[in-house]
């Protein structure tokens, strides 16, 4: 059976809308594709509801926007960085992995991490804004 895109995912609106150009998805790097697919695959398997993931995404993106009050149109962090952080949070929330397990992949970049499972805690901006 040929899989079809889930409209709940493809038609997200507002800040969480998938970056698209002329309707088609925009990925800059291979990791963005993988992070995208991981979040969608786990949801398709019923590990969580899409809205649970999306709530994290809204919080991540909303939190980041507030740190850019001087340049509201210029987010410092890419969409899929927020996506990845949201995925990690929902994985922790659902007990699908532990904070220790997540730390395995982060060795080189402690400053890019948000605090694990800190629901109400706003992450500090992780990426300096390129000019």
């Amino acid at each position: 059976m040929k899989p079809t895109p889930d409209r709940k995912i493809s038609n997200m609106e507002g800040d969480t809308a998938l970056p698209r150009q002329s309707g088609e998805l925009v990925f800059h790097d291979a990791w963005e594709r993988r992070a995208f697919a991981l979040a969608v695959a786990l949801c398709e398997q019923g590990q969580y509801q899409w809205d649970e993931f999306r709530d994290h995404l809204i919080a991540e993106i909303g939190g980041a926007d507030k740190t850019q009050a001087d340049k509201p149109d210029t987010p410092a962090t890419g969409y899929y960085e927020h996506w990845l952080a949201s995925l990690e949070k929902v994985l922790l929330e659902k007990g699908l992995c532990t904070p220790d397990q997540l730390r395995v992949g982060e060795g080189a970049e402690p400053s890019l991490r948000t605090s694990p499972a800190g629901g109400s805690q706003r992450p500090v901006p992780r990426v300096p804004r390129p000019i």
Partner: protein
Amino acid sequence: MSHDHPHGQSAHDAPPNPYLEKHATPEQTAALEKRVRALESLLVAKGLVSSDTLDKLVETYENDLGPINGAKVVARAWVDPAYKERLLKDATAAIAELGFSGLQGEHMVVVENTPNTHNLVVCTLCSCYPWPVLGLPPTWFKDAAYRSRSVVDPRGVLRDFGLELDESTAVKVWDSSAEIRYMVLPERPAGTEGLSEAELIALVSRDSMIGVARVEKNPLH
């Protein structure tokens, strides 16, 4: 052609999605690659996902979203006169022939651009849009200014999109509704006779199927 020509503060111009540009530096990208690779390995090891599933998912979303479906319809009509005839007669059925469905009861009508007639699609009431063939509507399609001005000054709207039409070319405006969704069959650009159907698909932009652009032989990107 995309509509990234200068509009100034024209209301037709949706604010660019700030996430279309890449933000991460090469070092950050390398770190992110590593972080995601580790996460994927972890989830594969737990038996939660398989790398094969992930590949297929990405393929599905990259290929099935967006105007690629509409572009396939257009390219087929360009290379197959019998298909074009069916498309102009009963677009809903002709589009379904190519396997694209998902329309919720509404009819598709395809209107053909010719050297003498240019068609423009709008939804004056809201943003009725044939999403199974054209993907998500662009933000400006829902914009009140586009919706109202397309009716009273279509040539002006087209000029804003960088499309200057000859005075002798008639402009027809089609108002989509909940019952009828319009799509434009753009003109096949001159000099593309040698191109394959697949190559033609790549030329067809979303904007050309709404009618705010022509199909160019050499798209800008």
